[in-house]
C-alpha cells in the first residue's frame, strides 16, 4: 500500500488538546500557579502537566498517529487503539490534576488519586507507544524523520517511568529507597526527557519533513541532519542515563546536566543551520502562513537556547528556569503546534471531503479552506504576548505576565475559531465548491469515504 489513510481520531486528539491549552492559559491569566505560586508548588505542577500532557502530548500523539504512517509509507499498525488511548490519557490527566489539587489542599479524600492517574496515563501512553512502535518496527531502514520519532518515543518511556515514580511517591504507595531517591531528586531528568526528548525531538523530526514538503524545499538526508540526530540522542542519553547513574551513586546531577546541555546546544546549532537551509532553498518563494508562523516558533527556540546560555553565564540558570521553560513550552512548542495545526487541519479536511471527488469534478485547493488574512494578526498577537510574558517572568513582573497570558488566551481562542471555520468549510463561499458527494465534515472525527 503506497498511500496511507486518514487517522479517524486525530481531530479528537487536537480538539481535546486545544481545550486543555485554553484551560492552562486561563489559569495563568487568573494568577494560578507560577509565578504567583512557587515553581514546585502543586498549583504550578498542575499547570505544567495541563500544558505538557493535556495540550502538547495529546497534540503530538494525534499528529504522530497521522504522520508516522506518512513518514514510513505504511499504514498505522492498529486503527482501533487511538480512541481508548485518548480516553485513558484524558482520564489519567484528570486524575493527575485531581492529585495535585489534593496536594494543594483544594479538596481532601480518603484515597490518593495519584496511583489511578499513574495507571491510566501509563496505559494511555503505552497504547500509543505500542501502536506507533509496531508501525515503525515494520520498516527498515527507518527514514531520518522516523528515527527522530523513535528517539522521542523512547524518551516518552523515560518520562512516564520517572513521572510515575514521582506520582506514586506523592501518593505514598511506594517505600523502595531507590524509588524515593529518584522521586526526590530526578525532577530535572523528568523535564529533560519530557520536554527535550519526547516533545522537542518529535517536533524536530517531523519539522524536517513538513518544512520541506510545505515549502517545496529539497529533503535533507545528508550528514548534518544525521549529526543532529546523533548529538541529540547522545545528549538525552548522557543526561537521563548519566543523571540516574549519578543519582544512584548519591552524587550531584550537575555533570550530567552540563554535558547534556553542551551536546544539546551543538545539536540545536546544526538543526538551526538545517532549518535556515530549508527556508533559503525553498522553491515556494511566498510561503504559507503555517511556514511563516513556524519561523517565529523557531526563533523562540533559538532565543531559548541563547537565553539558557546567557543565564548559565550569569549563574542565574536555576533562578530563571521557570521563564526558560515557559519560552520553550509556549514560544517554541505551542507556537509550532498552532502553526502546524493551521495547515494540518485544512489538509486533512480537504482529503476527507474532496479526496473522493478528485479528478471527477472541480475542487477547491487546500489553501481555499483557510483565510490566512484573518488568522495572521492573531498569530502575531500570540507570539508577541508570549515574548512579553517571558520578559515579565524574567523581570518577576507578575501582573504583566498575567496580562500577557490573557492576551495569549485571546489569540489562541481566535486561532481556534479559525481552525473550526476551516474544519467546517466555512471559509468556502462559492457554492460550486460543494459538488455532489461533498458533505460538511464532522468537527471531531474524520470519516473518509472509500475512494
Amino acid at each position, binding site marked *: 500500500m503506497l*498511500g496511507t489513510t486518514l487517522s479517524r481520531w486525530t481531530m479528537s486528539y487536537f480538539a481535546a488538546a486545544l481545550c486543555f491549552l485554553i484551560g492552562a492559559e486561563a489559569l495563568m491569566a487568573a494568577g494560578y500557579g507560577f509565578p504567583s505560586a512557587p515553581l514546585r508548588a502543586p498549583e504550578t505542577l498542575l499547570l505544567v502537566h495541563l500544558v505538557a500532557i493535556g495540550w502538547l502530548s495529546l497534540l503530538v500523539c494525534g499528529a504522530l498517529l497521522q504522520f508516522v504512517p506518512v513518514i514510513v509509507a505504511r499504514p498505522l499498525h492498529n486503527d482501533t487503539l487511538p480512541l481508548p488511548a485518548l480516553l485513558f490519557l484524558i482520564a489519567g490527566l484528570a486524575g493527575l490534576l485531581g492529585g495535585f489539587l489534593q496536594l494543594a489542599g483544594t479538596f481532601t479524600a480518603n484515597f490518593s488519586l495519584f496511583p489511578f492517574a499513574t495507571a491510566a496515563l501509563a496505559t494511555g501512553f503505552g497504547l500509543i507507544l505500542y501502536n506507533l512502535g509496531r508501525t515503525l518496527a515494520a520498516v527498515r531502514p527507518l527514514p531520518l524523520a522516523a528515527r527522530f520519532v523513535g528517539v522521542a518515543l523512547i524518551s516518552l518511556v523515560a518520562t512516564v517511568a520517572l513521572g510515575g515514580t514521582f506520582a506514586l511517591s506523592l501518593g505514598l504507595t511506594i517505600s523502595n529507597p531507590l524509588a524515593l531517591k529518584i522521586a526526590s531528586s530526578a525532577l530535572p531528568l523528568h523535564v529533560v526527557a519530557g520536554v527535550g526528548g519526547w516533545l522537542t525531538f518529535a517536533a524536530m523530526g517531523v519539522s524536517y519533513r513538513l518544512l520541506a*514538503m510545505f515549502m*517545496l524545499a529539497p529533503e535533507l538526508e545528508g550528514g548534518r541532519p544525521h549529526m543532529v540526530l546523533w548529538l541529540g540522542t547522545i545528549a538525552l542519553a548522557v543526561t537521563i542515563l548519566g543523571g540516574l547513574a549519578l543519582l544512584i551513586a548519591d552524587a550531584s546531577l550537575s555533570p550530567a546536566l552540563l554535558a547534556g546541555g553542551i551536546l544539546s546546544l551543538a545539536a540545536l546549532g546544526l538543526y538551526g543551520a538545517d532549518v535556515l537551509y530549508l527556508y533559503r532553498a525553498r522553491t515556494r518563494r511566498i510561503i504559507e502562513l503555517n511556514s511563516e508562523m513556524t519561523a517565529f516558533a523557531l526563533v523562540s527556540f533559538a532565543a531559548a537556547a541563547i537565553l539558557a546560555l546567557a543565564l548559565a553565564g550569569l549563574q542565574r540558570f536555576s533562578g530563571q528556569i521557570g521563564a526558560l521553560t515557559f519560552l520553550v513550552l509556549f514560544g517554541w512548542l505551542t507556537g509550532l503546534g498552532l502553526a502546524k495545526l493551521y495547515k494540518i487541519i485544512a*489538509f486533512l479536511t*480537504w*482529503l476527507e471531503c474532496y479526496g473522493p471527488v*478528485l479528478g471527477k469534478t472541480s475542487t477547491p485547493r*487546500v489553501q481555499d479552506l483557510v483565510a490566512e488574512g484573518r488568522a495572521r494578526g492573531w498569530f502575531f498577537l500570540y507570539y508577541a504576548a508570549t515574548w512579553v510574558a517571558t520578559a515579565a517572568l524574567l523581570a518577576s513582573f507578575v501582573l504583566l505576565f498575567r496580562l500577557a497570558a490573557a492576551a495569549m488566551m485571546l489569540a489562541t481562542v481566535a486561532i481556534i475559531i479559525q481552525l473550526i471555520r476551516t474544519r467546517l468549510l466555512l471559509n468556502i463561499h462559492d457554492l460550486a465548491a460543494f459538488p455532489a458527494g461533498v458533505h460538511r465534515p464532522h468537527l471531531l472525527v474524520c470519516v473518509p469515504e472509500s475512494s
Partner: protein
Amino acid sequence: MFILTEETTDPNSLRFLPGQPVLRNRTLEIRTRKEAAISPLADRLFQIQGISTVVLGPDHVTVTKHESDWQHLKPVILGAIMDHFVSGAPVLRTAAPLPIASAGRSTDVLTGEIREALRRVIDPELGYNIVDLGLVYDVVAADNGDVVVTMTTTTPGCPATNYLSEGARACAASVGGTGNVEVRLTYEPKWSIELMSDDARNHFAAQRRGRR
C-alpha cells in the same frame, strides 16, 4: 569510471560500454527528443547537437549521429554518459512497458488528450495540476485504447496518494476512445522539484501574498 568505445558497421554509429548494466535484458531504441523523456540518460544525450538515435542495450549505449564528426562528439558523449552514471539517476524513469515503436498516430493523439485531461487533477497541497508538477511520468496507450498512466506523488506515503491515483484514473477514463485505464504508482525515480514544468516553477516562484 572507464568507458570503452567500439566501432560498428555503420560509420555514423558508435557503441559505448560503460562497464555496468544499462538496460537489463532488453534493448530500447530512442529516435526523438520527445521519446527521450522516458530516460534521463537518453535525454542527456539528446541535448548534444547532432545526435539522431540512441540505443540503450543490456551493457551498451549506441549513439548515431547525423551531423558533426566523432572527433568533436565523442568526448561530449563520454562526458554525458559519465555524468549520468555518477549522478545515480536511473536509466529509465519508469519500469512500464514501452510500446513506443508500435504507437501509431492515433495513440499519440489519445495520450496527448489524456495528458491534457490530467491537468484537471490538482495536487491538493500545492494547488497545481499534476502534469505540470511533473507527477505524471508516462502515459501509454495501446491500439485498443487501453491506457497505462505511470505517476508518482510529491511524498511517498502521502494520505492523498490513493485519491490522486483514483482521480487520475477517473480523469483519463473520461477521455473519449479510452478503454481500460490502469494507474501505476512509482517512486523510482523519486519526485523532485526539477521535474516541474517551467510554468509550474514560475508559478511558485512568483506567487504573491494574498493570492487565493
